[in-house]
């Protein structure tokens, strides 16, 4: 979240799109209810289903799954053409005035530089026009035909109300009603918040949907404001933390990135990332990249990381393909190129798309290690569970280990919620049987490996033999030791440019500003610097007072970065440093420095007259309406159809088959054979969570099993009538990849849509239930979903695919 849960109460309008917080985040949703009651806010839900969030909303608009860019692109068009944007904000705080290279273009659904054979773009033209200093040219009047504002205006001019209506299937008057409500928040004293979750990310165009929302918020001046922002509600309890700590194939902690194979030179690796400002004198905070990187290498490799060996640069694996994401890994596993796999609290058989492919892939492994508190389908993928999972154990040669681990109630540590708060919690009881903490299990495996390498030697052993392992109990590093390590500490006395002592050797760093690129500091995750200082563990703090009445509770736990609660909060004030509106004030200039009810997200003494812009992590200092080369399918979001679409073509580009689906999506040729067509599978399906369950865990809990005991699918009343299905009937739902059977919930809450001149029925398939646990045994929903991913995140398209529903 750019903002945080309690801040939702400061909003005047809450748009829930691509999320369903009443079901997936009910307690966080409380702050939506508070905004309605105490801030006279309106709640609007745009979703394929009238869900439990819609049940308490002020307005609801139905939409075809996977068409949110069209809906929001139309909104951008409407806001610009009717001058319902916050002009001062747009001019000062976005890149609207920057001029784009004349090489850049967009034609019939494709941006310049597309190579149809590789399915990739050459992004060279996706740049601003630069002067000799390397700074982007600007036109403050926003009139230049190639300034970002005019290009964007032209790009979305195609997204008229009629087009949006035809693509999304949302009735015209509802679209207009929602757009009007949103447009109201262009006023400086009004804010709207977008609440979204996996309903936006799990599309082949997921990242660009979110970018479209960000553009809307920038146009309305809602970023950095109380009650504003683009707020990812996120799915799991520490998915934020694991992202921050970089547990993704291409990342290192703190959003540092692994080098590519062709980045052989350390200096070049750093230069590529320590990016200079593109507008004179902007902060461009990433220019400190090397401080964070070197401090990480010191935390990991200790004394072995030296300037002479480029801080062990050679020890970092170099990526041979842009990303070894899960679709890529399972494609390789399916082809027999992967021998071992470790699942730590992850249930891929249930959670990944195209279950048949996952089963076949796991069967080709030599060994599989599952570390989990619970029985999982993955650990038992070799076992026959009848119709629900029909395999022959005798034919599966995978050696499977199942290691029992603690659950949250049996361990100390922190998780990062979607507000970015690191909250410490404590164990209440010992784990069952011989279960051990995950840290002890990782240490146990690692120490054995280390021992084997010491005894036998082996491939490239230096990194693992020299891994910094200072833990008092090597086989069980404590959470306290690990937390202190990712906070960071000084290895030598650190001095500033005037030789004043900043921090003594051995002390914990207070913030990431103390980190150095000369090897004098170590830090496991620069973003978390400040969480465990010389003042102790900041994450245990429990002062819930709210002296400003803004909901920031700065004394509760610790929020990254630097205990800041609202990101980009400099933008809550006008360029002159006064708040846009008293009721929305976060930080302001008091004549000497930035002060306020939150930690300023800005250099504290950078005066308004200096003119630095608020988005300090960006090279332009500005909110990026134009993404340059940072997105893989284009600088402006464009609507593309889901890979399994219920209509014949992309209504925006009916004559260009290359622009039917996302041209940059993650898709493997062999998976294309497993995509169905609407002729065979006419119903548009989407999968989702229910409030009574959490994925495939709570089916092991009697209380939750009672509350929602058996797999069902939701079918609109009119489709049900067409197919002769009554509520409670059993139905079969098939896709090109398999079928499931479940009970039919027939509902008025899913209405047929008129899309591009035809009727589209949508079918809702909750993702819960499997063949283990306390609930009724069932098929796994991901039997049905396709193996295709977003162009930037590679997140599979769980939310839009095609099925056929039949009565059993």
């Amino acid at each position: 979240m750019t903002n945080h849960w309690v801040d939702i109460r400061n909003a005047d309008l809450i748009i829930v799109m691509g999320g369903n917080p009443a079901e997936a985040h009910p307690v966080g949703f409380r702050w939506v209810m508070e905004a309605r009651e105490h801030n006279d806010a309106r709640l609007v839900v745009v979703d394929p289903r009238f869900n439990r969030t819609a049940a308490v909303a002020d307005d609801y608009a139905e939409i075809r799954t996977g068409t949110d860019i069209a809906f929001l692109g139309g909104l951008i068009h409407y806001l610009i053409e009717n001058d319902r944007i916050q002009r001062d904000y747009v001019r000062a705080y976005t890149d609207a005035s920057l001029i784009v290279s004349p090489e850049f273009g967009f034609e019939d659904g494709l941006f310049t530089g597309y190579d149809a054979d590789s399915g990739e773009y050459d992004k060279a033209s996706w740049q601003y026009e630069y002067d000799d200093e390397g700074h982007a040219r600007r036109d403050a009047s926003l009139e230049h035909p190639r300034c970002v504002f005019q290009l964007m205006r032209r790009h979305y001019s195609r997204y008229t109300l009629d087009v949006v209506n035809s693509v999304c299937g949302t009735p015209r008057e509802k679209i207009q009603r929602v757009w009007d409500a949103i447009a109201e928040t262009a006023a400086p004293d009004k804010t709207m918040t977008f609440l979204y979750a996996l309903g936006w990310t799990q599309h082949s165009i997921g990242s660009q949907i979110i970018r479209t929302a960000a553009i809307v918020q920038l146009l309305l001046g809602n970023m950095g404001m109380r009650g504003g922002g683009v707020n990812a509600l996120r799915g799991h309890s520490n998915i934020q933390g694991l992202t921050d700590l970089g547990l993704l194939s291409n990342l290192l902690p703190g959003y540092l990135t692994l080098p590519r194979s062709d980045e052989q030179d350390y200096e070049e690796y750093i230069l590529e990332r320590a990016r200079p400002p593109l507008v004179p004198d902007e902060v461009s905070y990433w220019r400190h990249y090397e401080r964070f990187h070197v401090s990480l290498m010191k935390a990991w490799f200790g004394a072995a990381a030296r300037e002479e060996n480029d801080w062990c640069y050679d020890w970092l694996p170099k990526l041979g393909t842009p990303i070894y994401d899960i679709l890529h890994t399972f494609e390789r596993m399916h082809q027999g190129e992967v021998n071992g796999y470790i699942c730590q609290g992850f249930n891929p058989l249930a959670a990944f798309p195209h279950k048949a492919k996952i089963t076949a892939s796991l069967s080709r492994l030599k060994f599989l290690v599952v570390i989990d508190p619970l029985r999982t389908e993955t650990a038992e993928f070799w076992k026959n569970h009848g119709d629900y999972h029909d395999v022959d154990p005798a034919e599966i040669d995978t050696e499977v280990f199942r290691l029992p681990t603690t659950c949250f109630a049996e361990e100390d540590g922190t998780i990062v919620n979607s507000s970015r708060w690191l909250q410490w919690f404590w164990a209440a009881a010992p784990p069952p049987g011989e279960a051990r903490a995950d840290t002890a299990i990782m240490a146990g495996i690692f120490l054995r490996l280390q021992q084997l390498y010491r005894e036998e030697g082996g491939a490239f052993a230096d990194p693992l033999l020299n891994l910094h392992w200072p833990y008092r109990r090597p086989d069980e590093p404590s959470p306290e030791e690990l937390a202190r390590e990712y906070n960071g500490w000084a290895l030598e006395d650190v001095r500033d440019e005037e030789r004043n002592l900043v921090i003594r050797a051995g002390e914990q760093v207070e913030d990431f500003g103390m980190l150095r690129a000369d090897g004098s500091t170590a830090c496991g995750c620069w973003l978390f610097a400040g969480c465990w200082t010389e003042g102790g563990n900041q994450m245990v703090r429990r002062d819930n007072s709210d002296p400003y009445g803004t909901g920031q509770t700065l004394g509760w736990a610790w929020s990254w970065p630097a205990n800041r609660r609202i990101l980009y909060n400099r933008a809550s004030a006008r360029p002159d440093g006064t708040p846009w509106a008293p009721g929305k004030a976060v930080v302001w200039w008091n004549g000497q420095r930035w002060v306020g009810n939150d930690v300023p997200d800005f250099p504290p003494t950078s005066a308004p007259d200096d003119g630095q812009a608020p988005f300090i992590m960006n090279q332009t200092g500005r909110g990026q309406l134009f993404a340059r080369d940072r997105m893989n399918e284009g600088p402006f979001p464009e609507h593309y159809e889901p890979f399994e679409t219920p209509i014949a073509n992309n209504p925006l580009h009916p004559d260009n088959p290359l622009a039917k689906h996302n041209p940059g999506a993650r898709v493997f040729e062999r998976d294309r054979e497993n995509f169905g067509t609407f002729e065979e599978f006419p119903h548009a399906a989407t999968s989702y969570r229910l409030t009574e369950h959490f994925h495939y865990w709570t089916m092991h809990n009697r209380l939750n099993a009672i509350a929602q005991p058996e797999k069902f699918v939701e079918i609109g009343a009119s489709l049900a009538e067409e197919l002769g299905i009554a509520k409670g009937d059993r139905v079969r739902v098939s896709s090109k990849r398999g079928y499931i059977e479940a009970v039919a919930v027939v509902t008025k809450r899913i209405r047929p849509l008129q899309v591009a001149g035809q009727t589209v029925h949508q079918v809702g398939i909750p993702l819960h239930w499997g063949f283990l646990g306390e609930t009724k045994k069932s098929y796994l929903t991901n039997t049905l979903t396709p193996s295709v991913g977003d162009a930037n995140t590679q997140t599979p398209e769980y939310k839009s695919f095609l099925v056929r529903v039949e009565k059993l």
Partner: protein
Amino acid sequence: MRGDQINLQNVIARSATQEPSPQERSGGVERVTKLIDVSRCIGCKACQVACAEWNDLRDEVGNNEGVYDNPLDLTPDTWQVMRFDEHEDEQGNLEWLIRKDNCMHCAEPGCLEACPAPGAIVQYANGIVDFNSEHCIGCGYCVSGCPFDVPRISKKDHKAYKCTLCSDRVFHGLEPACVKSCPTGSIMFGTREEMLDLAETRTSFLKGRGFDNAGVYNPEGVDGTHVIYVLQHADRPGLYSHLPEDPRISPLVDAWKGVTKPLASVAIGISALTGFVHYVTAGPKEHGEEDEAAVREDDAREREREERP
């Protein structure tokens, strides 16, 4: 026995008992009320789960019957359920009305009036109507006495069960488990006065959002309830899974009371004792027409309940 430790002076009514409870130390006990604002309910069932967890109840794992509701109905192990109704108005606007259904803790409790087992049902000064299972004889009279169809008889021990409004928590200064868990503030708890005020505030809010018929459900027929609803359509409580328009204690109970009232006299008491001895030695008397009708009515209710989705 366990109940002995409770301050008896908090009991203001006790089933099938004539002797008054101690009343001198009546100060300091406020009537409490649980408010359920249906317009804020997301049907998440947190209350349902929290209720079962707190009260150590684990019902059977059921089936899906084509609706979100589960368990489908109250049982001896499920003391509250969420009931989901899809309501389309004349303009085609859809509302998903979700009502938490549980004991209403009536000011004039039909169950208590009907109960023949001394002390099996009590009403505390704070308004909570509680089943005192040790004394329950499983007769089911509370079921027919309840205008809201709440109590359920266990097949395991032949005793009646229902929501206690977490009397154990409330007597220790806590709110009921369902109230505490509620993520949206749909369920609120406090003194009766505070809740009635809050209900008015919530009603005005709803009227401001276009629900002209919003209102409070606190039915007079049972002298008000200690569980009250805020409804978007207070003029049509039936929309909410057949919430009764004008609940009253079943005439059967009045008939029953008509018979028992004279028992205040010792003479009749003695004759009844004689009757009891006669029953024990010679079996039951013939029942009257009135009772026969009551049985039929009760059976009909039961059938209706079973047929409900």
